[in-house]
């Protein structure tokens, strides 16, 4: 396999052919924000937060797009910043007021991104009151809050491709689309083995640990 040389934010970098823009940027220490991608998973490019400018009509997702020779990538233009910010606002529009993830492991990636891009107002409709997406507390160890789910697909891939338990899937259409377990049964009744990989990869408060910090006497 041959190497490819490109420019990211004005800096030259040479990487093996087939490398994604996101991975190439990492080698330069440029951290392109991303929600749906995790280096342990095959990229799917659904959250679009990592979109970059490569001089095309549209903004490709850096986590999926492979580098090409002499590509000129910008990750920090005004357009990119605005794009990221609007996407973040849209994702936050129907999020619960308090992130359960900030309350349990303290690493909500969506909230961290919101702080990074300095979101204050969210000028988009909040559908959660009219059409709440629901919770599932049937598992003794994993709390599911569909309201916080951004359908990034990380949990589905972690369950299938990392732990190979093949429990989580997607169901529904449009706004009612959500993740589901087995043939859409409550998580606690599904074939889930509670390995918690889905919680580990979830970027929001959609999949979190039930609190374990205290133990009752009995």
């Amino acid at each position, binding site marked *: 396999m041959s190497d490819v040389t490109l420019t990211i934010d004005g800096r030259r970098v040479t990487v093996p052919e087939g490398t994604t823009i996101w991975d190439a940027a990492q080698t330069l220490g440029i951290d392109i924000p991303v929600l749906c991608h995790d280096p*342990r998973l095959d990229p799917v490019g659904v959250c679009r937060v990592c979109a970059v400018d490569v001089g095309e009509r549209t903004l490709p997702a850096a986590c999926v797009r492979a580098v090409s020779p002499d590509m000129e990538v910008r990750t920090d233009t005004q357009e990119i910043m605005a794009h990221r910010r609007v996407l973040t606002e849209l994702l*936050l*529009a129907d999020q619960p*007021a*308090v*992130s359960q993830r*900030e*309350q*349990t*492991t*303290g*690493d*909500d990636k969506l*909230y961290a991104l*919101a*702080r990074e891009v300095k*979101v*204050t*107002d*969210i*000028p988009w409709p*909040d559908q959660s009151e009219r059409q709440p997406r629901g919770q599932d507390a049937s598992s*003794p*160890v994993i709390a599911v809050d569909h309201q916080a789910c951004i359908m990034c697909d990380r949990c589905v891939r972690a369950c299938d*491709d*990392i*732990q*190979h338990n093949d429990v989580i899937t997607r169901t529904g259409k449009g706004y009612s689309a959500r993740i589901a377990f087995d043939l859409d049964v409550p998580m606690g009744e599904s074939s889930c*083995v*509670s*390995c*918690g*990989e889905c*919680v*580990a990869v979830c970027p929001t408060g959609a999949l979190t*640990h*039930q609190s*374990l*910090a*205290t*133990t*009752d*006497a*009995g």
Partner: protein
Amino acid sequence: MKQFADSTNATFSDLTETATLCPYCGVGCALNYGSDSEGVIHYAKGRDGASNAGRLCVKGRYGFDYAAHPQRLTRPLIRRDDAYPRGPLSTFSRANSSGPRKPGGIVDYAEVLPHFREATWEEALERAASGLAKVRDTHGAHALAGFGSAKGSNEEAYLFQKFIRTVLGTNNVDHCTRLCHASSVYALIEGIGSGAVTNVVRDVENAEVAVIAGCNPTANHPVAASFMKQAAAKGTGLLAVNVRRPGMASYCEQYCQITPGSDVAFYNAVMHVIIAEDLHDQAFIDQRTEGFEALAKAVKPYTPEAAEAMTGVPAAQITAFARRLGQAQSAMFFWGMGISQHVFGTDNARCLIALALLTGNIGRPGTGLHPLRGQNNVQGASDAGLVPMYYPGYQAVSDASVRERFEQLWNVSLPEQPGLTTAEITHAALEGEIRGLYCMGENPFLSDPDMNQVRKALSSLDCLVVQDLFITETAEFADVILPASAFMEKRGTFTNTDRRVQIGRPVRQPPGQARQDWHILRDLAQRLGHDWDYADESAVFDEFVQAAPLYANLTYDRLGEHGRWYPCPDANSEGERVLFGDQFPIGRGRFVPAELGQAPDLPDDDYPLVLNTGRQLEHWHTGVMTRRSRALDALAPEARVEVHPSDAKRLGITDGSWTTLRSRRGAVEVQAHITRDVALGTLFLPMHFREAAANLLTTPELDPFGKIPQFKICAVALAPLSTPLTPPQPDAVSHAAG
């Protein structure tokens, strides 16, 4: 307009993440515990360890809260004078107390604690030391024995065996490896000269096929299982052989369900086909092995047709299995308790070793022998000499020159006589030959076969010192209970199933006056006149490395956060993943033929079914830890005996209904779970639940070589429980504790 509300939680921004390990199984997953300044652990996160690549299973992810359980022992306890003569203290331990109306869950402190009084460390250590010394002075050193633990660190294992050998003066020291892979280790040392794995789990990705024999990795080594499943997704052909359908069977090319105890016949037939169809690796056999002719002769009568009658597996399936394995360029062999826990466990393991030698599948990437080790440090505890026949590093006690070297190193004179193994110690106690026992982190009352005999053995002792986190069933018999430290409270090295030596680090303090196990050992040794002085755990490790050349080139500094494999050829090496590329420690590998043996305690008209015992995903061994983990207890609160639907129908048993399960030694009452995972005529009962204690039923017969009990076969009768029942009220039992 909605505003973005920053919901950062101050507690979680202040958490410290400590790089340590999972305390449960032999996979040895690296993880971070996120803990606050009070030492409260809030979460476990997978770390990029050599054996887990960031993955964890339910036990590692959610089972860490046992250390903070309110029942932790915080003060030394001494048995009150009116609690003698020695015996069990709880209703459960006193008799065959099993079933829906009987105490379940963990030891009932309200019932047991009044028989003990709190003591100072000074008094408790004096009582322990003088009790052991008195037995030694009255009955001789060989009337003493020690059970160490594969849950402790290498340093603790090393010091425990040193204590028993040098301070007490006997080789009667063993631990739960005897209940686990002792037969595999015997066969491996005999066959290739090394008892550890020859290749790491994750190399399964380079294997063309992998044999998953007598093990259930999705339940017992879940993270290792995820790498096997991943390999299968990328083309590795998994071949499972078992009496009970393992979860892995769904990912396998072929699953052969053999009848209980017929392993030798199955593998001999596989070897028969491989030799008959010229699929063996003649070059490897010529260059690297000896004894092929005898093996070929021994497997000759095991035609697939003959084996079909013995194993219940159709001859065509055996032939297909043999061809797939024989034609593969590389194959790995994983096995577990289904191979080892038999009176012919050593023979079973000999067959797998022979199969690997026959097909030339040792010493290259994607090949190798891998007995999946159970406890997080069962490999290390054995390496550290926590076994009666070897000093640290598998150096034979019976070898005079080795003994001389250890006498110099430890500056004492050492006993010549090799010691007794776990079950032999129990049997010797029944004969009155063992009078005093020191148990550090073992719970033989529940873990050893034939509980009624163990009860008698423990009751008959003159002195029992128990060092543990909780009052265990075994501790009910103790003179002195010493409160010890949990995994997440100590620093030490742990050696996983892959031979990787990694450091575990403390994230919390032991509660109350509970102490580091190695401090307790050191103080007892000093009290008994031995000048033990170690600056810290790393100094103990350095002495262990000096004693065991197996661990050469390893130090705390070099292990760092990620650990290394042993053997480690030089100071800069990561250690060796794949062993024996050129030759075996004994030169040539040895084929040791095996004949199909007959298990004791077979079914008859009165006891028509075969009971298999083992583990389940959410629990660990005698349940001392996992049943005190809120999450794990909630996920799997009760024992179920697995019954085949046709047996259930015939016996009038429905899913969830109560049954009586009776063997020639005892009976338990337990709910049924109807599943086709078990074959017709066989049952499965997990070992973790004392209210349906599998070891009330099991037979005490041992493998003659590995001295491992036959946990996998005992004849039982199953019947619906006749009287109408009120379901148990857990609140009434366990809340009393506090």
